[in-house]
């Protein structure tokens, strides 16, 4: 077993990135991701990490630097949050279409306005259409471990796609937990040097980022989607290999007491831990409550989610995000579509926007609602917001 070290979520990502030896780090600090960037800058300045650290003037430039560096064959890391991701949004699509395995750590923060620095997953969820692999972590250990897996997944030649992974603002990014660490040597054996699909080489020139109009854009997008779908195989393989190395096994859908559950809570991020505590409490009372955490979000683990939910009467989704005017919030919608053919009733809940605390009793209320639905068998017609002042839940 590795040494247990106290670290915040931001620190756990910075320390894990250091073990992965990126050639280039280009990032702009933004609360609550700041500590990731500060620590990495320290490592480089102190000579502990041999990376080119590019202190850019904006996130748009950060992602543009990542693009250029990755084309040159470099292993590249960046980090951002909220408005920072909004500013780099344009370049995200360009990086994924060029099949560049840029890895980005995200401290998931609510989007402005009104300005808010606390937890919300929408900054990463709205990137669902950018062609990036997307993963949500649930504690400091999973942030550390996912960092190391991220480079291996993204850089696998079958994949060669960018990957972003998130931790809830403050609740994880600034939370101290014990993290079981790995040795540099272990990570070196696990993660081979990057072997790029292609590089810009003056002696063997190619063109990257070309125009593709009616004759080819359509086929390129089809091909890109096939790569994204196929990346699931590599993700699972890397999770398995990481489990063999560390004893810590991750799944694309992490389940807890889901096998015989009547009601299953479907969660992402930090809420998962609190939901697990509620499952323990309900199980001790003989109530058949289970949990399914959507850990890997893109590519969406459709089959695995269907398998996890197949025996349940009701699956209650808890979204820490909002999409205005849609049939439902983002996680809800994906779960609903995935299970539309003979799956359980999907009941949607929104919670914790802007870092509003999501308490044990809040999630217990969700569970109680879902058990009522299981009893009546009637599909709810609207999404419920947990704990909005002045609105009946």
């Amino acid at each position, binding site marked *: 077993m590795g040494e247990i070290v*106290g670290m915040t979520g931001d620190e756990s990502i910075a320390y894990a990135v250091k073990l992965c030896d990126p050639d280039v780090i280009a990032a702009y600090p933004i609360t609550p991701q700041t500590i990731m960037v500060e620590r990495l800058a320290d490592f480089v300045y102190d000579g502990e990490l041999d990376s080119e650290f590019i202190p850019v003037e904006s996130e748009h430039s950060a992602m543009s630097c990542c693009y250029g560096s990755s084309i040159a064959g470099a292993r590249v890391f960046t980090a951002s949050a909220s408005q920072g991701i909004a500013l780099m949004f344009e370049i995200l699509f360009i990086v994924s279409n060029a099949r560049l395995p840029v890895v980005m750590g995200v401290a998931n923060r609510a989007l402005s306005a009104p300005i808010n620095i606390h937890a919300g997953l929408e900054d990463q969820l709205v990137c669902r259409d950018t062609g990036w692999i997307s993963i949500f972590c649930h504690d400091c250990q999973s942030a550390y471990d996912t960092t190391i897996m991220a480079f291996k997944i993204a850089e696998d030649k079958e994949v060669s796609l960018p990957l972003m992974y998130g931790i809830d603002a403050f609740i994880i990014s600034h939370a101290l*937990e014990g993290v079981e660490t790995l040795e540099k040597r272990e990570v070196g054996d696990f993660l081979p040097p990057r072997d790029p699909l292609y590089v810009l080489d003056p002696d063997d020139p190619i063109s990257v980022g070309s125009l593709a109009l009616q004759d080819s854009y359509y086929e390129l997008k089809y091909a890109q989607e096939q790569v994204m779908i196929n990346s699931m195989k590599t993700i699972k393989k890397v999770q398995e290999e990481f489990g063999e190395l560390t004893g810590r096994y991750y799944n694309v859908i992490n389940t807890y007491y889901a096998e015989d559950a009547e009601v299953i809570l479907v969660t992402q991020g930090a809420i*998962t831990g609190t939901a697990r505590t509620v499952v323990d409490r309900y199980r001790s009372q003989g109530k058949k409550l289970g949990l399914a955490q959507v850990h890997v979000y893109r590519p969406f683990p459709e089959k695995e989610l269907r398998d996890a939910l197949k025996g349940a009467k009701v699956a209650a989704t808890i979204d820490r995000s909002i999409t205005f005017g849609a049939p439902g919030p983002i996680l809800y919608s994906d779960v609903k579509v995935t299970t539309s053919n003979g799956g359980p009733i999907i009941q949607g809940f929104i919670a914790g926007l802007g870092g509003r605390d*999501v*308490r044990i009793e809040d999630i217990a209320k969700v569970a109680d609602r879902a058990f009522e639905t299981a009893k009546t068998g009637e599909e709810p017609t609207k999404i419920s917001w947990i704990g909005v002042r002045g609105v009946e839940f």
Partner: protein
Amino acid sequence: MSETQTDVIDIRFYGRGGQGVVTASRLIGEAGLLQGKYVHAFPAFGPERIGAPVQAFTRISNKRFYEKCEVVYPDIVCVLDPTLYGILGQAIVSGLDEEKGVLISNYKESPEELRKELKLNPNIKVGVVDATSIAIDVIGRAITNTVILGALIKAAEVVDLENIIKVTKKRFPGEIGEKNAEAIRRAYNEVVIS
């Protein structure tokens, strides 16, 4: 204490921006890690402003636990700055366990005085120490975050004194660490518990 994990100790800290509330919550957590415990310590603040009220939370347990929410039902409340009573009043002790709860405070008067001010249940243990004076005396600045930890672990043996001192010296190397260690020991010895 959370309803399901009866061995989890839930601590809520209060102070003002710049007083090191977040560091206090972390140091307890780091000392816990030295003893093989499981911890989760995190702050709840707005945009960082000197002097604004700040809360931080530490959960600590011998068993692995999973909840990631704020401490609503604390076993221990720890107050770094007594002027906060004038602003926050009884909200400071909201949810504090009526049977086994502990309130630790930087406070010049007696524990009885504080008990009366907050109309506390007689079962709640109160520990007071003049942390500001100790801090000025020993460290030379009115920073009470490490000092108060000495009082906290005397009143509620969450972690060992020596481990608090160890992590404090690691966090503040050199002379400043030695001074903080001395201040912690003084608070440990001078805290008045009722």
